[in-house]
């Protein structure tokens, strides 16, 4: 690009131009469906600056071309994805999975327990980020058991590696953005507005959930988690290497009670990771069963 067309300058710093931003924003949207609004332009500049440095690129325009045409672009796209999505979460994330949990899996497990008159349920949300997922599960459990709830012993264990997100998770205050897929009646029933646009989960939702810090790569830490009926570990293992994936999934297998279920992210798979689970296919979602 020409010195004069671009405005001549002696500066060497990286700054994202409007056109470059639009290109990258559209590219990211086309790749992973995450839309980065204009107000987050600066955020993008900040987060990607390191990627540019690591790849020895001189501008965001070059980075865009790298992502589109470089032979190594696949792995760079993953890194980009990682930078953008690390803590990304929300209530009712991936609705087909949530419906499957609510309408099929939870029902089945609850019915079985009722039949065995063992009214005890443990759910594990591994990699819970700011708490949307475990609170979401708690809400669904409330909806399912209603008045019967006090007769049950229920616990949702939620953990994450990042102390920062755990601080937020324990507070349990959420914005409209986190609640964008949540039905209005659920918001009314299980949240109270603490200030305009900010919603705190009610104590009865919180009461079922226990947060703590865990590193999923530490097998012995995982052994301390109580046995679960259902495990959620969505959008967490994507960035682990195969060896670590195998170990984590193996620990989940051991943790699950017989006929327990594992949910992983909808774009993740256990292929080449484990043959021990039986994948059960439903419209729009797969859940993994530990046969017992």
């Amino acid at each position: 690009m020409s010195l004069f067309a671009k405005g001549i300058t002696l500066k060497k710093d990286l700054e994202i131009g409007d056109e470059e931003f639009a290109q990258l924003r559209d590219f990211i949207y086309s790749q992973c469906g995450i839309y980065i609004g204009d107000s987050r332009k600066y955020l993008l500049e900040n987060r990607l600056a390191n990627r540019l440095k690591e790849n020895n690129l001189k501008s965001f325009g070059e980075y865009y071309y790298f992502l589109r045409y470089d032979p190594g672009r696949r792995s760079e796209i993953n890194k980009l994805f990682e930078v953008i999505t690390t803590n990304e979460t929300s209530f009712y994330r991936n609705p087909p999975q949530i419906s499957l949990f609510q309408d099929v899996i939870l029902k089945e497990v609850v019915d079985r327990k009722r039949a065995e008159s063992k009214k005890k349920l443990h759910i594990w949300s591994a990699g819970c980020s700011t708490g949307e997922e475990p609170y979401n599960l708690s809400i669904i459990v409330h909806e399912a058991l209603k008045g019967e709830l006090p007769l049950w012993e229920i616990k949702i264990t939620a953990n994450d590696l990042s102390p920062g997100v755990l601080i937020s998770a324990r507070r349990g205050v959420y914005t409209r953005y986190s609640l964008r897929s949540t039905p209005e009646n659920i918001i009314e029933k299980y949240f109270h507005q603490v200030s305009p646009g900010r919603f705190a989960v009610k104590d009865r939702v919180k009461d079922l959930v226990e947060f703590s810090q865990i590193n999923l790569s530490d097998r012995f830490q995982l052994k301390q988690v109580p046995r679960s009926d259902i495990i959620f570990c969505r959008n967490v293992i994507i960035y682990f290497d195969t060896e670590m994936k195998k170990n984590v999934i193996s620990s989940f297998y051991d943790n699950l009670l017989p006929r327990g279920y594992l949910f992983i992210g909808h774009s993740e798979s256990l292929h080449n990771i484990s043959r021990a689970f039986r994948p059960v296919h439903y419209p729009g979602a797969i859940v993994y069963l530990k046969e017992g």
Partner: protein
Amino acid sequence: MYEMDTDQVLDLLQSDDPEEQREGAFAARDLNLQDAVPFLVDLIKSESLGVQEAADMALRKMGGHHSVQALIPLLSNDSPQIRNLAMDILRHIGHHNIDSLIMLLGDKDPDLRIFSADIIGHSGSFMGIRPLCDALLNDPEVNVRYQAAVSLGELGRTEASECLKKAFDDEEWVQYAVVEALSKIRDESATHALIQSLDDSSELVSSMIVDALGEMGNVKALPMLMRRMESSPTALRNKIVRAVINILGSKAVVFLDERQKDRLRDYLLVAIEDEDIDTQDAAVAGLGYVGGDQATSKILSVVTSYDPDVDAYRMEKAEDALVSIGFNQALVQGVTMENDSAALAAVRALGRIGSPEAVQELIQAFNSKTRDLQREISREIASSGGEELKVFFLNLLQTHEDGDIIKNSMKFLANKLRDEESVTELMPFLDHPWDDVKETALDSILIIGGEKALQEFKNMFLSTDPLKRLMAVYAFGRLGAGENIHVLKMALQDESPEVRKMALEALATICPDNKEVISQATEVMNDPDRKVRLALVDFLGGCPGQEALVCILECLHDEDEWVRIRAVESLGSKKDISVVPRILSLWENSSKLQKIKIIESLGIIGGQSSFRALLDILDDSDPDILDSAEKALDKLQDKGGE
């Protein structure tokens, strides 16, 4: 970690409960408990996939003599799934007990013999060679012999070459695997074996051998290949030619005598027309080595079929060959060819040869050529020519209108000659209507540099045209801000904001050495133009010391948001705890963007006050702000742990 003893682990493994069996398997793995092997192998047959997988993981990790022995019976299990699993584990750990696997090579079941040959091939063990050779030469079952050959290749050891050679008496199906195996062994003995078998082999096997020899690249194969070249039909001969070129590369010139070279050239001239692209390309390269006018013509005629855009790599190889043959009349003729690809290749080759006569030919051809070729010629000679071309290029500057050609000429005068005299000739191009030409002119003049150029820019700085003054200030930055500080100071007061901004950028290049520059620069603190103030913050960010810090703090109250944001950013990078309250005082009236920047800076600066502020920020209602605060807290936690 484990308080379990052997008995407890063995008990777990023998339990009926799949959970306990898994726990036992992992414990056995972590303790490397060889006594557990029979039980683990038993669990491979478990109905529970979870148990099977745990046993698999354990056996793979532990390995050992007993594991191998105990797994072998599973190779004859009725379930293909279990057979395959056992096979896969044995490929990993077979080397721990090669003897048992060797015994298996004598089993009466041919399938088991194939399996064991396969596993031994993966074992990396020297001990496997003799038994595999034995199987290769004596097993009654052709599939076992085939697998033995494959596995010997897998092992890749010299000692196998002799027996592999003998297997050339076997069925053709086995011979394929033998050629493949020898090419993997690769060494002298393997080369010999292949050479010796060449004469008696079928045409198909011969051509495989020739390919293998070419790929292995041992010169010892050469005499045989050269001999066979004479007596072979065209298709095979072309392959031989290709192999010879692959083996020899540029050494062809040294290794072959004149007569051999002539013969090889004849064959290359045929092989270049082979339908196989790789053979064609090898022939092009080969002709490059053996040389001759005829070689040049032939290469150029092949190039006529290239599309320079699609076949860029082949073009380059052809040019390499032409260059290596060197200057000759055929190449000179090439420049005049109708076909663009061929003419282009000839131009580039002459340019790269770069001898006076080659350059002369290009200059002579210049006027009669199309614009594209003229561009190419100007580019080529600009990089190969010297002082003698000065007049030619100065002349092009005066007479030519094509932007590329003008740019090439300017680059030549700057990069090649650093010719201070031509600064006068280059200056007018700063007024050229096209930006890229202007840019090259400016860049070229600055590369030449020197007193004359500096004087030109000093004069230019007095111009009434702000773009001229801008260029001048840019030039001062590139020619050395330190020496031109006095003009830069004047530039800070220029009426054009672009010029003032450029002056700051120029000063930024010397700030760390020169603190007095700061007080000069801060005169623009209240500049009416935000771009200038942004440049000021940038400049201050790069300057060490309290003085710059104080100035940045003032910029926090700039009316323009981006100035404030960059100031916050800049303060963050200075990691000075004392500025935290000042940064926080902005919070209430900050936009989202500015808040995010404040958060990030707090995360970088750290300290108690940053931490407390970040906790308060978690009450915010904006997800991006929350996200940034969580990340900043993680950062502080990391630092706290250090």
